[in-house]
């Protein structure tokens, strides 16, 4: 009996080739496109495509027809709204900068979709993520960076534990993007030359602040003041959701020096601005820690490399986590600006050990 794989297809080139790869490997492939975001609204012609647009579904369907496996559109809009979009809005309202792709992977692609996969008799879920899964001699699964460093998406996948890795396939992990496109062209897939999707899929115009405002009550917004480190009021603002730590534009402050958002205090509505060098941190506190390698014991300090933004390089740090799923991370040398709400992922070389959500920065003067 051939093992059945549910392939999550977005209509892009990566998931198209992922499907082709598992098909070639002899699996019984079932393609699904997930309807996640609400339909794009607004006047015809001004609607921007999202990863859930009809055109993308049609592209995925054409790939499935070409490769001759069954394909279905499944409706996970309610799950996506409750588990990803609401979290996104709440985080912004709380003065944090969420990473919805991490949330979508954890809640939708490797949890909700897995339930659907089992309901459909599938043994695995496959996606077009650039990351590798390897099983060690002891049977444990390791999550590794992609072969193509420029496309590596392991940062978004730190929530996958041993159970999830055991039932997940990343067929593109060993390929470069160039190879993926070449394979798509060789197979005659309509998605071969499709451009990359960049924006967050449910905010196709990239205007997060307006999205948060549309999705919340006026009373939930936290307007207030931009202040300096001494508490002096520099400007008024219409809500903390309009700011992210490290941001320079949009402070509304006329100042001789360049000012950046240093800290957001959601309760008081205060946005603290400071000079570039004031952003530097000694480390951070993260919560909702999730370990890929569940043999790591709490309490012990562990030397890791930590990545606190998808586009950042991993930097050396010491990590110590407690049984309450919180961790303290100390950078080996002066660290970059730390943005609460973003994911903080621990690596050792190629391997993802785990990660969490950044709760707050540890200021340099607090450092031991």
């Amino acid at each position: 009996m051939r093992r059945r794989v549910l392939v999550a297809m977005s209509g892009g080139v990566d998931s198209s080739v992922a499907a082709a790869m598992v098909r070639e490997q002899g699996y019984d492939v079932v393609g699904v496109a997930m309807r996640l975001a609400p339909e794009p609204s607004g006047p015809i012609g001004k609607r921007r495509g999202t990863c859930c647009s009809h055109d993308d579904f049609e592209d995925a369907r054409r790939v499935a027809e070409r490769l001759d496996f069954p394909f279905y559109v499944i409706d996970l809009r309610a799950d996506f709204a409750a588990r990803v979009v609401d979290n996104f809005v709440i985080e912004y309202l709380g003065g944090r900068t969420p990473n919805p792709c991490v949330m979508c992977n954890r809640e939708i692609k490797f949890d909700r979709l897995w339930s659907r996969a089992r309901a459909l008799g599938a043994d695995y879920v496959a996606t077009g993520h650039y990351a590798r899964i390897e099983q060690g001699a002891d049977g444990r699964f390791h999550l590794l960076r992609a072969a193509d460093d420029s496309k590596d998406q392991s940062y978004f996948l730190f929530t996958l534990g041993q159970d999830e890795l055991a039932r997940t396939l990343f067929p593109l992990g060993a390929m470069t993007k160039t190879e993926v496109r070449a394979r798509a062209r060789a197979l005659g897939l309509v998605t071969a030359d499709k451009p990359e999707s960049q924006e967050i899929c449910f905010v196709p115009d990239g205007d997060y602040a307006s999205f948060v405002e549309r999705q919340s009550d006026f009373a939930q917004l936290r307007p207030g003041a931009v202040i300096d480190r001494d508490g002096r009021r520099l400007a008024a603002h219409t809500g903390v959701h309009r700011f992210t730590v490290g941001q320079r534009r949009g402070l509304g402050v006329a100042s001789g020096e360049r000012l950046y958002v240093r800290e957001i205090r959601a309760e008081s509505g205060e946005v603290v601005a400071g000079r570039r060098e004031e952003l530097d941190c000694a480390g951070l506190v993260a919560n909702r820690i999730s370990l890929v390698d569940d043999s790591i014991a709490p309490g012990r300090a562990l030397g890791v490399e930590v990545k606190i933004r998808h586009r950042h390089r991993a930097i050396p740090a010491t990590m110590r986590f407690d049984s309450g799923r919180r961790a303290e991370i100390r950078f080996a040398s002066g660290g970059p600006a730390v943005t609460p709400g973003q994911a903080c992922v621990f690596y050792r070389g190629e391997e993802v050990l785990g990660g969490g959500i950044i709760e707050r920065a540890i200021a340099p003067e607090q450092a031991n």
Partner: protein
Amino acid sequence: MTKTVHEIYLDHNAGAPVRAEAAAAISRLIAEAGGNPASVHRAGQRSRRMLEVARAQVASIAGAEPRQMVFTSGGTESNNLAIFGAIGTAARRRKIITSQIEHSSILAPIAELERRGFDAVRVAPDSDGRIDPARVLAALDSETALVTLGLANSEVGTIQDLAPLASVCAEAGALFHIDAVQAAGRIPVDAAALGCDLMTLSGHKLGAPAGIGALYVRDFARIAPIVFGGPHEGGMRAGTPNLLGAVAFGAAAEAAMSAMAAERVRIGSLAASMLARLSEAIPGLRLNGPIAGRLPNTLNLTFPGVLGESMLIALDLEGVEVSMGSACAAGAVEPSHVLRAMGRSVADARSSLRISLGWNNTADEIETAAALIPQVWRRVTGAEPLAEASAR
């Protein structure tokens, strides 16, 4: 998708596989005819003769005279011709009466007419999907241009008692249209006895290919055409008729007609045994629609604790082909508006599937499907219980 498993096709209300009789008629036509039935020459005459034979065959499933049958491209066009054709002759009248459980090819034209300033009344059904004629009567007045109702509902199979309506419509001066797409060829349908002015038929529900339908028009003077061009179809539908479709429709109609009495019993008992088997194996399974007064082939079932979407896909992967609600433009399934109108919750509508049998289903297939469906239901409830499936 290439066939890899033995497929048990239980979606005849969406469209039936082509009958051998229909395929043979198509082959014969290709071999023998070849002219435009409107042409003067002998090739045209041969085509015309075949078209007229088909017209008579199709008329027989509706209790109609052949000259009253207008070939169209299908049920949707017939319904559009009935609706827009009716308002085309009713200059003063601005009201249309229908029900909430009609097919989209009725509801969408009426919604379009509302945009153009017409009034629409959509009568609610009872919890079994029956339309009370008294409710139609209550809405009927001298402003009413058209009353349009389905004879048998496509999703739940409820058969309506429409006979009382013809005379009251006539008294009010309104045209009366019956959408008999799901009924014709399955149960006896008699347009003359029903007394309607217009009746829609479709070929591919009976085993002709899609792309051919017909509209019974009692009196051509009462409706206006919506497609203009040549003098085809008595001036009611311009355009060279779909001769291939028409002869296939005729052959399928004749086959359905001659087998109807036996097939009603055979398919009815297959459906009944399926329902009995499923009810026994699935606690809390609910049949939507009435126990009696339903199409013999249609079972609309609410499966407790699962998303219909998951059941539909899981069954398809096992080779059992059923349906649910209607597909949106993206290809995802939406909860049935018929079940919602019958008072079912969105959650129940999302847990419901339509199983519709037809001419090619065998006792073995129904046996296999009746064993597979509970297995799949148990797997889906175990893997994806509804509390988790929060798409509700």
